[in-house]
């Protein structure tokens, strides 16, 4: 129990500190107890953050949502389709496809960032939304998980029954299989979301226009300027708090999915 308490402190105190820090004015930030509130200025601070440079921060948040939410949503559907086909059909090149995709899991996303930049510059498409969005769609680990989940949760007999009822293969997938795989799909979505959210090198290499930045890259650039522009420090802290809030809330709401789904990849 003591171990648990110490660990809880270790994991939560930095976040508590961030929350408290974000609620303070900049002189109170250094002069008052870092772990307890002074005057509660959180909303005024958020107002300042949003007003700074014509709301560039909101733009970053929106970009992040589009990059990560969009890529994870579409990427999950694509991975589910491919994984489902690998699990439920036998076709030529199936093993080859699976092995290539599986090797893809071991190739880290950061290793691809530079060659992707070189490729996109060939077609003059660096520094665009698509340069970050399109590569983020591909998630080999999602295919691997989808295959395991499809094998486990979609019985062949049910597919056969759907066929007898005259349902086409594609319709069966969207109407029957996706429902059975739904908890698993949420897990794949979450994994994918976090992976894109955390991929820092790709936008760092690809983007130079500030208005295209995801929030991580934006806060990073502010943080590098803190020594020249001290007022940015407060904004970085409030921005950090706001940037982690959506994902923390998503984790809370989707608890029952990741709680049970996470292990499946490891069991097999």
């Amino acid at each position, binding site marked *: 129990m003591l*171990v*648990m308490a110490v*660990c*809880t402190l*270790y*994991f939560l*105190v*930095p976040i508590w*500190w961030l929350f408290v*820090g974000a609620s303070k004015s900049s002189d109170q930030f250094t002069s008052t107890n870092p*772990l307890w509130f002074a005057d509660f200025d959180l909303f005024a601070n958020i107002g300042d953050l949003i007003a700074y440079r014509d709301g560039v921060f909101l733009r970053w948040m929106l970009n992040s949502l589009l990059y990560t939410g969009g890529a994870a949503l579409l990427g999950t559907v694509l991975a589910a*389709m491919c994984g489902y*086909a690998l699990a*439920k*059909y*036998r*076709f030529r090149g199936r093993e080859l496809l699976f092995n*290539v995709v599986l090797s*893809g899991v*071991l*190739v*880290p996303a*950061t*290793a*691809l960032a*530079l*060659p*992707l*930049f070189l*490729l996109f510059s060939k077609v003059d498409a660096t520094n665009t939304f698509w340069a970050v969005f399109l590569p983020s*769609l*591909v998630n080999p680990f999602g295919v691997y998980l989808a295959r395991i989940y499809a094998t486990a949760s979609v019985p062949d007999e049910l597919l*056969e029954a759907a*066929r007898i009822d*005259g349902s086409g*293969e*594609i319709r069966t*997938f969207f109407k029957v299989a996706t429902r059975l795989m739904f908890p698993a799909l949420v897990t794949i979505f979450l994994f994918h979301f*976090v992976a894109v959210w*955390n991929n*820092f*090198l790709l936008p760092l*290499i690809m983007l130079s226009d500030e208005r295209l930045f995801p929030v*991580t890259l934006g*806060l*990073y650039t502010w*943080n*590098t300027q803190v020594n020249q522009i001290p007022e940015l420090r407060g904004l*970085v*802290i409030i921005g950090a708090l706001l940037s*982690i809030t959506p994902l923390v809330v998503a*984790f809370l709401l989707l608890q029952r999915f*990741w*709680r*049970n789904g*996470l*292990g499946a990849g*490891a*069991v*097999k």
Partner: protein
Amino acid sequence: MTQTLTADIDKPVEAPTGRARAVRHGRAVPFFVVPFGVLFIVFYLLPIGYAIVQSLYTVERTGTFGPAREVFGGFTQYERVFSDGPFWTSIGRVLGFGVVQVPVMLGLALLLALLLDSGLVKGRRFFRLAFFVPYAVPGVIAAIMWGFLYSPNLSPLKPVTSAIDFLSADLVLWAMANVVTWVYVGYNMLIIYSALLAIPAEVYEAARIDGAGPWRIAWSIKIPLVMPAIVLTTVFSIIGTLQLLAEPQVFRSFSSAVSSTYTPNLTVYSTSSIPNFNLAAAFSVVLALATFVLSFAFLKFTSRKGVQ
């Protein structure tokens, strides 16, 4: 539709094995596989191939200010990579980092998972969530937060941070190890914990009848049974360690001890912003290959030992 119907009428006649059934409905396969396959080829395989091609070229100039042109240089770039001292120092650095940080992180994750599973602790749901929350913090943001926490002036741990300089050349690597550990323990714990939950209760029943105590059960039953989960988390951790980028990149603004070639990926990034894309591509290829070989070797090693 008609074809599907006739196919189904045939069914009872043939042996309804999975193979026979599946082949007949194979026409839908391209619909499922092609969208992912195309993206995978264009944004995964093609960049890998292109990086390899690029790494075989060098830029030549006629005179100092003459126009640059790319010529085939064979392994010229790789010779540079292999004779690049700082790059290999950085590889050594992340390997040292991994040898210490990965076991600590996974050991802690395993311990917490076993504690959660043991029934000794109340409030399991709360702890599970509390430990998992840092995973929602992106590496960059986590590094910024801890950068502030380490700084001697702003930290809530002022007595500690003013006595020990976590951002000094000696300690900054381990300060980053702490950031990585903080983010990923909960995630790894959850993977191991889910594997523990999947162990059927009868196994414990039998062990208890044989007279095994809780320690014995944890050591001889639980840990071996969750080994596949531990192997998986180890592989991901090895990959993550070699790719270390966001944390050192952020720490450069907190500590002068972090150079632009501190980790292999930082080298790739700073080489590409010179810009020397051919050399950066060669660095990328070597790094990706090293990562692949290391994680693959680990998988082979553990499966030979009969873990998986």
